[in-house]
C-alpha cells in the first residue's frame, strides 16, 4: 500500500488529536450488547492445530467466540480463530439446494436434488460399474461424516474411489510415518513444546499456518532463551524471527541437508548407539536390511561440503544445526507442506525421523518428530478413518485380504463385500473425471476447482456434460460451485455436532451451537439420505444419529493400536479433547507412543522400554533416502522457482476468511513476493504488476518486494479465487504418497 507524505502528515495530526478528545466508552457499550447468554464447546474451523473454542450464543445466534481454557490452546486463539462469527452469517451462504439447468444453477427442493443425484449415480453404476462413481471429501468434514462416506462407498456401493483434499496436504506424512514406524500419526504431542530444548522447524511457516503452536514455541523460547530454534526454509518468514539459525537453501535440496546433518552427527559421535543398536533397522532405498557401517558409507555422499554445493547452505551452518539438534537434551521437529507437497515428500519425512532415531530424540518428553497437519480434521477424519482410496479404517490397507476380512466381520457384512483393488488416488481420480471415465463425483466440504494443482485441466473436465458432480458446500462463492451440476446447502461448523481430530491425535467434540441456516443440512444427514436413495444395504448404515457413527467407529478402533474405546460421547462432552490410544473410560489418553508405561498398546512388563509395534521386529527404520531434485527444476527458459503457501490472515481457498471484513481487508488479493535482488535485476518495484509464466499458464500479480524469498524464488499465496495460482502449479506427484508437488515448479517473471 502506498502512503504519501501528505497522507502521513494528515494521519499524524489525527493521531496527535487523540489525547485531546474525551468520551471513551461508546464502543464498549456497543460491544457489551453482544454479551452471550450461553457458551457452547467446539473446535476452531481452521487449521490442523485444532484449538478448542467456546462459541458464544445470544438469541439463537453466534455472537462471539473465545478460546477453550481446557483444551490444549489454554484459551488462546489466533487472529482467524478470534474472528469466526461473521462467516456463519455471510450473505454468500448456500441456503437451499440447486440444480444446474441450461448452464445455470436453479433453486430446487431437497427431494428433487437428491433424486437427481441418486439417479445419476445409479445410472453410472448400472452402465459403467461401481468404479465409475467416486467420493471426494475433506479434512474439514467431521470424523463421523468421513467414516460414513467411506463405508457407504467401499461397503455399500462397491467403489474404493474414496479420496479427498488430505491427499493434497498430508499423504506424504502418512507415507513417512508408516514406512519409518509402521503406524501413522505422530508419536508425541503438543505438550512436548513445553519441555523441548531445541526446535527443528523445516518446511513449515508455523507462525502463519499454525499460529497457536508457534506462540507456544515462542513462549518456550522466551521463558528460556537457551532453548534453540532452527528454521529451515528458503523463505525468511515470521517463523524465523525467533530462530537462532535460519537456514535458507535452494528449494528442493533439503534432502541433502538432512542427510548431511546425519553425517555430522555420526562424525561428532553424537548418535545414540545404545538406542539405534536396539531399536532401529537400517534399510537401503530398495528395502535391503543393512548395518550401521553401510549407513555411514551412504552418508559419505553428504559431507557438509558436498551438501553445500547442492543446497547452497554453508557447510559450517549445516555443522552448527546438526550439533544443536543432537546436543540438545530434547529436540522436537515440526514440518508441514514444505516437506509433504513434494515428489520426494515421503523421503523427506523419513529423513527427519532418521535424525530422531539416530540421536534417540524420541519417546521422551520434549523429543518427537512431529508432522503438522493443514486441516482441522485431516488426521482424525481422513487418516484415522482410512477415507482414502487405498486405506480402510484404523490404518488397515485395502490390498491386504486379512484387513478387509476383519473389517467385514466387524461391520457384520459378508466376506468379499469390500473390493480388493484400491481406488484412484486424487490426481488419477480427477484425471479420470476430466476424461469422463469416472462419471459421477460426490464432493463434500472441499473446493477442488481452486485447490487442485495445474487446475486448468481439471476445470475443463468439470465443464464436460458427460460427467456429473454434486457438491455439498456452505458458500455460494466457492470456485467449485461454478462447475457443479447439483449444489447442496451444507450446514456449517457450529450448526452441527461431531468430532474433529487434530495433529496430535486429539479428538474433540464440536457441539451443535445453533440451528442450520435456511434449508441447510449436516453432511451426515445428506450422506444418509443419499445412501438410502441408493438402496445401500441397511446393515451398512445402521445409524439413527451421528453419535451412533462415532460409537461404531470406537468399536472398530478397539481391536487396533488406534484403540479409543475410552473416548465416549459422555466423556467428550465433559472434557476438551482426549489423545488416542485411550482404551478405557478411565484412561487419561496417550501423550507418548511406542514407550512402555506410556503407550497402552505395550504391556507394562514388556522386556524393552521402546517397542515400535507397527513393525514386525519392533524396530523403527532409518532409511537411506538419496537426494533427488524436483520434478521441474529451473532451466534456461524458466530460470526461477515458484512456491505457494498461506498468509496468516487467510485459510485455504479463502471461502471462510474472505467473509471476515478485517481479514479480507488485510489481504484483499494475492500478490507475488519477489526478492530485492531479483526485483532490482528486472526493474520491478513494490506494487508493480509482474507477469508470472510457467509451462502451464501465465498470470499477473502485484509485486511485494522484500528479503523474505531467497533470490531465485518467488512466492504466491493460494487463497485468492480471482487469482488462482494453481493454474501455474504442477501436478507431478510423489510415487509413494501420490501427493502433488505444489511447492516447486519452474517459472519466469517479468515486469508487466
Amino acid at each position, binding site marked *: *500500500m*502506498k*502512503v504519501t507524505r501528505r497522507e*502521513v502528515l494528515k*494521519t*499524524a495530526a*489525527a*493521531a496527535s488529536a*487523540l*489525547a*485531546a*478528545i*474525551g*468520551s*471513551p*466508552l*461508546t*464502543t*464498549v457499550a*456497543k*460491544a*457489551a450488547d453482544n*454479551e452471550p447468554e450461553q457458551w457452547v464447546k467446539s473446535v476452531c474451523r481452521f487449521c490442523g492445530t485444532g484449538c478448542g473454542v467456546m462459541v458464544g450464543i445470544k438469541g439463537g445466534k453466534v455472537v*462471539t*467466540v*473465545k*478460546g477453550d*481454557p481446557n483444551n490444549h490452546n*489454554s*484459551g*488462546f*486463539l*489466533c*487472529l482467524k480463530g*478470534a*474472528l469466526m*462469527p461473521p462467516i456463519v452469517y455471510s450473505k454468500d451462504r448456500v441456503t437451499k439446494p440447486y440444480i444446474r439447468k441450461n448452464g445455470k444453477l436453479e433453486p430446487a427442493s431437497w427431494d428433487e436434488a437428491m433424486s437427481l443425484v441418486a439417479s445419476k449415480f445409479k445410472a453410472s453404476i448400472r452402465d459403467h460399474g461401481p468404479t465409475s462413481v467416486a467420493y471426494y471429501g475433506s479434512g474439514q468434514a467431521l470424523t463421523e461424516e468421513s467414516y460414513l462416506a467411506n463405508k457407504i462407498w467401499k461397503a455399500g456401493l462397491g467403489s474404493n474411489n474414496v479420496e479427498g483434499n488430505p491427499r493434497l496436504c498430508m499423504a506424504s506424512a502418512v507415507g513417512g510415518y508408516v514406512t519409518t514406524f509402521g503406524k501413522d500419526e505422530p508419536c508425541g504431542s503438543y505438550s512436548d513444546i513445553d519441555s523441548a530444548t531445541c526446535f527443528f522447524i523445516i518446511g513449515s511457516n508455523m*507462525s*502463519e499456518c499454525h*499460529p497457536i503452536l508457534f506462540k507456544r514455541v*515462542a*513462549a518456550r*523460547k*522466551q521463558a528460556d532463551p537457551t532453548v534453540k530454534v532452527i528454521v529451515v526454509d528458503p523463505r525468511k518468514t*515470521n517463523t*524465523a*524471527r*525467533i*530462530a*537462532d539459525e*535460519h537456514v535458507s537453501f535452494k528449494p528442493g535440496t533439503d534432502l541433502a541437508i538432512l542427510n548431511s546433518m546425519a553425517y555430522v552427527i555420526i562424525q561428532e559421535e553424537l548418535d545414540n548407539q545404545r538406542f539405534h543398536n536396539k531399536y532401529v533397522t537400517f534399510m537401503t532405498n530398495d528395502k535391503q536390511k543393512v548395518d550401521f557401517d553401510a549407513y555411514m558409507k551412504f552418508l559419505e555422499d553428504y559431507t557438509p561440503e558436498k551438501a553445500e554445493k547442492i543446497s547452497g547452505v554453508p557447510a559450517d551452518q549445516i555443522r552448527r544445526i546438526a550439533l544443536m539438534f543432537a546436543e540438545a537434551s530434547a529436540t522436537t521437529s515440526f514440518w508441514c507442506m514444505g516437506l509433504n507437497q513434494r515428489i520426494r515428500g515421503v523421503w523427506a519425512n523419513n529423513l527427519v525421523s532418521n535424525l530422531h532415531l539416530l540421536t534417540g530424540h524420541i519417546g521422551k518428553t520434549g523429543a518427537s518428530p512431529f508432522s503438522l497437519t493443514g486441516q482441522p480434521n485431516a488426521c482424525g477424519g481422513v487418516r484415522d478413518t482410512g477415507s482414502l482410496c487405498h486405506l480402510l479404517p484404523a490404518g488397515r490397507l485395502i490390498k491386504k485380504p486379512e484387513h478387509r476380512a476383519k473389517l467385514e466381520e466387524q461391520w457384520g457384512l459378508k466376506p468379499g463385500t469390500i473390493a480388493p483393488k484400491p481406488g484412484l488416488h486424487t490426481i488419477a481420480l480427477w484425471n479420470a473425471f476430466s476424461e469422463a471415465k469416472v462419471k459421477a463425483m460426490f464432493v463434500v466440504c472441499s473446493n477442488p476447482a481452486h485447490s487442485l494443482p495445474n487446475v486448468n485441466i481439471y476445470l475443463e473436465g468439470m465443464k464436460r456434460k458427460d460427467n456429473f458432480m454434486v457438491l455439498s458446500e456452505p458458500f455460494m462463492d466457492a470456485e467449485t460451485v461454478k462447475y457443479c451440476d447439483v449444489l447442496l446447502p451444507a450446514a456449517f461448523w457450529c450448526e452441527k455436532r461431531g468430532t474433529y481430530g487434530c495433529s496430535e491425535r486429539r479428538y474433540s467434540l464440536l457441539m451443535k451451537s445453533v440451528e442450520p441456516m435456511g434449508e441447510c443440512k449436516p453432511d451426515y444427514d445428506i450422506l444418509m439420505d443419499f445412501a438410502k436413495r441408493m438402496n445401500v444395504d441397511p446393515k451398512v448404515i445402521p445409524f439413527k444419529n451421528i453419535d451412533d457413527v462415532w460409537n461404531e467407529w470406537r468399536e472398530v478402533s478397539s481391536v487396533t493400536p488406534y484403540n479409543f474405546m475410552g473416548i465416549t460421547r459422555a466423556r467428550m462432552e465433559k472434557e476438551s479433547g482426549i489423545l488416542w490410544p485411550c482404551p478405557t473410560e478411565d484412561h487419561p489418553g496417550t501423550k507418548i507412543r511406542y514407550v512402555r508405561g506410556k503407550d497402552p498398546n505395550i504391556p507394562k512388563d514388556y522386556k524393552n522400554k521402546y517397542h515400535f509395534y507397527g513393525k514386525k521386529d519392533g524396530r523403527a527404520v532409518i532409511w537411506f533416502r538419496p537426494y533427488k531434485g524436483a520434478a521441474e527444476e529451473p532451466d534456461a527458459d524458466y530460470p526461477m522457482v515458484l512456491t505457494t503457501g498461506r498468509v*496468516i*490472515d487467510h485459510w485455504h481457498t479463502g471461502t471462510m476468511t474472505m467473509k*471476515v*471484513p*478485517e481479514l479480507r*481487508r*488485510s*489481504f*484483499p488479493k494475492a500478490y507475488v513476493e519477489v526478492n530485492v535482488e531479483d526485483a532490482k535485476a528486472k526493474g520491478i518495484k513494490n506494487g508493480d504488476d509482474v507477469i508470472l509464466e510457467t509451462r502451464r499458464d501465465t498470470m499477473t500479480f502485484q509485486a511485494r518486494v522484500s528479503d523474505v524469498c531467497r533470490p531465485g524464488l518467488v512466492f504466491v499465496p493460494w487463497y485468492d479465487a480471482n487469482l488462482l495460482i494453481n493454474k501455474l502449479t504442477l501436478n507431478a506427484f510423489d510415487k509413494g504418497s501420490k501427493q502433488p508437488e505444489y511447492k516447486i515448479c519452474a517459472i519466469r517473471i517479468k515486469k508487466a
Partner: protein
Amino acid sequence: MKSKITITKTLAGLGAAFCLCFFATQVSAASIKHLKAPDDAADCYTCHQKVTPRVAQNWYESKHGVALMKCFVCHGQPDGKGSIPFAVVPDAKSVCRKCHEPAMLRMEKKFGIDPNCYVCHPFHQNSMHHDAYKKSISKKE
C-alpha cells in the same frame, strides 16, 4: 519498612491515577477520522510505522507482534464495518476475553478487581506491547 510500603503504595496510586487519566483521555472510535487505504488493503502496521512509529514498533516487538495478532483483532476496523466494533481502547470484557479469560479470572480472584486489563497493563507501553524477544534474531539485526 513501613515507609517503603507507603512509598510503594503511593507510587502504585500515582501509577493507577496516570493510567486512569490516560484511559479517560482516549477518543471514541466515532471521533477518529482514519485514512481510507487507496487500494482497500489494510496492513495497519505499514502506515502506523510512519504515523505512530512508537506504537507500531512496540507492537512489532511484543508478544502480539511476534504471534502476528494484528491490530484489527483487538481494535476492529477503522471504517466501523468490521466484525467487532472499532475501538481505540478495546473492550476487555469482549475482546481480551477471547484469549485471556483464564488470566482475567485469575486477576479478578486475586485482586478482586473488575477485569479491566488496562489499569495494570497499559497498552502500547509495556506488558502487552513490550519487547518480547530481546535475544531473538530480529533484535540482533
